[in-house]
């Protein structure tokens, strides 16, 4: 009760004294009850209404602890996975050290063939052990299998280790928004997919209304971020903004634009440019000019290639918005005039051969399915930039050659083993071509016209072809050079004179290195395969070493030893990366544990009762109650009636 009100009173009735005493006793009892609750529960806050601010802090801290517990669990899981990977990689480095030692010891000229043959057996053992490590399971999951955790990433096919795993990262949240990978995939660990073939087509894809804006690389090659743009139609002087945020496809964007323009009374229309379907076009009336701007810090107009202006009466032609190829991209949209694949391609991977028929294929996915369905140890996919198809050789040590099946499909797909841009240094298993001074080889065409070819300065396959064709032209020969339909070498063709086409060395082995040394027919000299795609990873190097040991080939043993040393460095690098990631996880783990401890301390400070204070207050409350009882009993007992006779 409000004691201060007693100051205004003129009289105190018996019932007032009773009322006051009861109120006081209730308050005393309530205080004791609350303190009892606090002491028995150990909590300072019994109800959120006691202290809303503290209650909110408690709620948020409990949530924060839950989140931190989740992160801790993730970090511990990641740390255990990385620790297991780290231990396995250490085994791999030991095995590689052993292989490198054997290569080094056997590269000299003192070792006998028998000794080398016995060392080859040890190399086979190392290959088996490496395979076992790569296929190691941890917590019932294949440690290096990527996201394919239920099957081993490596198997053996035709006596060769073949990659059948996944290349993807397994990631976990290390804070509320950020994820980090906690796995190492065997392909990156053992360098099984360093090089890929193909991906050189640079497909130019036409636009259509169904294409997702997310599938456009954008005019600035940074994608398309849908947002508002400002359009001005000069002439009638109409300015309007179009918000493209809700657009998912190009068709949506075009419809939104045209609808907004019509509503604004503008004659401007947006569409795909029929003259160049990789671009957009804005048109307006004959007396109008067009200007498109980005607003609000957005880049939508620039991304769509239409942040520009046109003169009066002229359309505004955008720039190429670089549509990516995706699984659903129709072949008919690939320029020029659709990607026609009437003949198919041939694939040779070691002893495995396949001819791929693309009949009926309508989309990129169909093409990939046909290639991947060949079962010759390859993996076809869209390249990272989204403008070509790349092929990986999954089998260690085999030569992969992709060529034509009587047409140009492989070239059009950009997956022919050799193409104009292939470096000469990559030919012959990486040994390259070694031109000398002056003419390197002599060609005699079917009419007996003979001419020398100098390829010094040539760096690519196309440079060699250009050099041969130029020399033929100077000599008046009808002979022409191109890439062999097989895909792995050169081809010389002529119109069919009386003599067979022939090529001779001129003091250096360039003709042999180009695979064209020798004699063909009167119309064709189809060179030998000099370029193939061979996996450059650890198993390829070990197979090379093993084969060299068996063949008692010292120089090849040296080359293989160099390969192994290179891979050793890479694996050590990977080991370092794993160590760094593991260290990062451990650091985060410690930080998060510290944060949890700090949060718990803070929570305890806010939520838990201070027993010393609570017990002291309890004693005070007890005293107060006792005082109230005593004063009340005394006060109520006083009455005039006690003194009346």
């Amino acid at each position, binding site marked *: *009760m*409000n004691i201060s*009100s*007693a100051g*205004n009173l003129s009289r105190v*009735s*018996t*019932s*007032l004294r*009773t*009322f*006051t005493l009861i109120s006081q006793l209730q308050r005393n009892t309530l205080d004791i009850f609350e303190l009892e609750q606090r002491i028995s529960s150990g*909590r300072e806050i*019994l*109800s*959120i*209404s006691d202290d*809303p601010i503290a*209650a*909110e802090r*408690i*709620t*948020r801290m409990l*949530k924060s602890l*839950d*989140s931190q517990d*989740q992160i801790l669990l*993730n970090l511990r*899981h990641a740390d255990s996975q990385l620790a297991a990977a780290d231990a396995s990689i250490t085994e791999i480095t030991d095995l590689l050290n052993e292989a490198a030692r054997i290569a080094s010891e056997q590269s000299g000229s003192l070792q006998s063939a028998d000794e080398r043959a016995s060392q080859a057996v040890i190399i086979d053992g190392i290959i088996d052990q490496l395979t076992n490590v790569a296929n190691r399971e941890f917590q019932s*999951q294949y440690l290096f*299998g*990527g*996201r394919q*955790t*239920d099957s081993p990433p490596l198997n053996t096919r035709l006596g060769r280790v073949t990659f059948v795993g*996944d290349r*993807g990262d*397994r*990631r*976990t*949240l290390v804070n509320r*928004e950020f994820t980090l990978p906690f796995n190492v995939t065997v392909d990156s660990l053992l360098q099984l997919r360093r090089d890929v073939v193909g991906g050189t087509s640079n497909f130019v894809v036409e636009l259509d209304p*169904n294409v997702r804006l997310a599938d456009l690389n954008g005019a600035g090659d940074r994608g398309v971020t849908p947002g508002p743009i400002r359009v001005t139609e000069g002439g009638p002087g109409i300015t309007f903004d179009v918000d493209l945020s*809700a*657009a*998912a496809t190009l*068709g*949506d964007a075009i*419809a*939104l634009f045209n*609808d907004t323009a019509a509503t604004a009374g503008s004659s401007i229309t947006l569409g795909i440019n029929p003259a160049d379907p990789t671009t957009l076009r804005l048109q307006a009336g004959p007396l109008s000019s067009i200007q498109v701007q980005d607003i609000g810090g957005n880049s939508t107009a620039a991304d769509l290639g239409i942040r520009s202006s046109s003169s009066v009466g002229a359309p505004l032609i955008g720039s190429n918005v670089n549509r990516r190829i995706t699984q*659903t991209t129709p072949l008919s949209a690939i320029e020029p005039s659709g990607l026609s694949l009437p003949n198919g391609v041939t694939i040779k991977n070691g002893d495995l051969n396949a001819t791929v028929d693309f009949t009926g294929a309508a*989309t990129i996915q169909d093409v990939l*399915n046909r290639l*991947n*369905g060949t079962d010759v140890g390859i993996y076809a996919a869209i390249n990272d930039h989204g403008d070509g198809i790349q092929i990986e050789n999954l089998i260690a040590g085999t030569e992969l050659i992709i060529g034509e099946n009587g047409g140009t499909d492989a070239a059009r797909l950009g997956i022919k083993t050799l193409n104009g841009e292939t470096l000469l240094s990559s030919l012959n298993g990486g040994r390259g071509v070694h031109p000398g001074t002056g003419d390197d080889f002599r060609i005699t065409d079917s009419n007996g016209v003979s001419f020398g070819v100098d390829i010094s300065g040539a760096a690519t396959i196309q440079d060699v072809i250009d050099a041969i064709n130029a020399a033929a032209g100077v000599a008046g020969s009808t002979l022409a050079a191109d890439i062999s339909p097989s895909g792995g070498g050169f081809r010389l063709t002529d119109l069919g004179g009386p003599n067979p086409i022939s090529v001779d060395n001129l003091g250096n082995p360039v003709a042999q290195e180009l695979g064209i040394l020798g004699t063909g027919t009167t119309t064709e000299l189809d060179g030998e395969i000099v370029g193939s795609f061979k996996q450059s990873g650890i198993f390829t190097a070990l197979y090379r070493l093993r084969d060299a040991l068996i063949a008692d080939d010292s120089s090849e043993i040296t080359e293989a030893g160099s390969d192994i040393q290179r891979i050793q460095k890479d694996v050590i690098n990977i080991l370092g990366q794993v160590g760094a990631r593991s260290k990062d996880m451990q650091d985060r783990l410690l930080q998060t544990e510290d944060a949890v401890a700090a949060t718990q301390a803070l929570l305890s400070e806010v*939520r838990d009762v201070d027993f010393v204070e609570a017990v002291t207050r309890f004693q005070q409350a007890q005293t107060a109650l006792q005082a109230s009882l005593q004063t009340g009993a005394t006060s109520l007992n006083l*009455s*005039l009636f006690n003194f*009346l006779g």
Partner: protein
Amino acid sequence: MGLGSALSVGRTALEAYQATLQVAGQNIANVATPGYTRSSARLAAIPGQTFSFGQLGNGVRVNSIRRNINEALQARLRTAVSDVAAASVERDALNQIEGVLDPLGDRNLGALISDFFGSLNDLQNTPDNTATRGIVVNTAQSLIQRIRDTRGQLIAFRNQINSEITTAVVRSDQVATEIADLNQRIVVAEAGANGQASALRDQRDLLLSELADTFEIQTREQPNGAVNVYIGNESIIQFGESFGLKAVSEVDDDGLAQIVVRLKINNGPVSTGAGRIAGLIKARDVHNSEQVNRLDQLAAGLIYEINRVHSGGQGLEGFSTITGETPVDDSTVALNDPLAGLAFPPQTGTFFIDVRDDASGEVVRTQINVNLDGIGTDTTLDSLAADITTNVPNVTATVLSNGRLEISAASGFSFTFAEDSSGALASLGINTFFTGEDSLTIGVNDLVANNVDYVAASSTPFVGDGSNATALVALQDQAVATLGGVSLNEHYATTMSDLAVASSSASSANDAASVILDSLTVQRESVSGVNLDEEAVSLITSQRAYEGAARYMNVVNEMLQTLMTLIR
């Protein structure tokens, strides 16, 4: 002037002091009677005859017996009673809601939300583990059970409030009738009398106080002693007539039962102002409804946002057939048209259907466009089904007679979904984790409950891909449109914070109102309460006065006897 007159003076004194003695006795008798107003007898000398030497009085009489009451204070007291009643009911209601939600408990709704996301967190690390998938479903079911229980308790509390309102209204109606009856009796009792019918008035004051506990009332005492009573602008009691109060059951905008107060006489609404019923109505329509709405929002956010991510992911196996959990009311209207009846309307976007040839493993991806920009032809359920059937090889989509979309693969094929930016799959209940649309209807989709392989932890066919689970986990702290731009965790924290502030405010308001009531009660007791010491003094005074009068009568009697002796 004579001895007879002298005796008459003594007689009036005896009568008067008997009366004052009786008044003191009445006060003493009611010292502990609640609401009793002490009475005081007011004595006045009876004017006498005038003589040449002056005037001689004719004794004393009780002029009136008045109640010691301050009517203005009584009115303020009744207002304070109303305020305290409203504040205490509101405080108690919020305490009860707090008890339901248990914001500081270890196993409250927030903890179960954390458990659910914790299980998804585990799933991102071990998506190939069937046990982990089972835990996700189990924690979801526990969460759903808690959401349903919480809703059930809130609705039960609402019904309890309705019941309390009904009881209070019925009692108030009785009280009003009794007040009207007392009005009549007081008027009759006080008619022509020079005093007040104290007991009747005390009784009426108690009833007015009881009515004030239920409603905020205004009173106007009439010259004849009757009190007219008003609730807001409505007259409830006029003299001897009560217009009656009744509790009427109606259905509110959310389809929930609500009890409202109406006048019996004309069925008109009653503005409650303050008082217990106002507190109960506020507890029901503001605090309880707020919590139900918040729970609905949380459930809706959980359902839609989880489903939106889940429906674009993949489980450990594809579908041979799947039927949407959510029917469309009209399959010929745009999916975002209210006539379609979808609780979570989709938007313009795309999704993919990946069809797998189970024999060869080949996958064919098809893009499905959902156009809902209101320009040209928008996507309807019928057109979506036709689009899928036409464009997705080896897959047929059908709109069932119950308005659900069924998608089936040809024999030897299975299908999965990916990258749904339209939200159409979540809206239609296809490949979703939850079913329902609010805290009443939320459930785990039988599809995943019966086969945890369908928990979409992955974005790819790889069993160890937990990327979709990662996206699901991240939802707990992501601002989402369904919750007005806050995250699920933030929504929960804000709800608890708002409840804490409301509860604290109600508690403070109750304390403040109680202080005022206490203060006024003290003042009332100071004015109207009985003090036994005072009454003892009054008793002695009356006793001594009576003794004096009696002695005086004796003296007069002796004088008369002396006079009579002379006559003999």
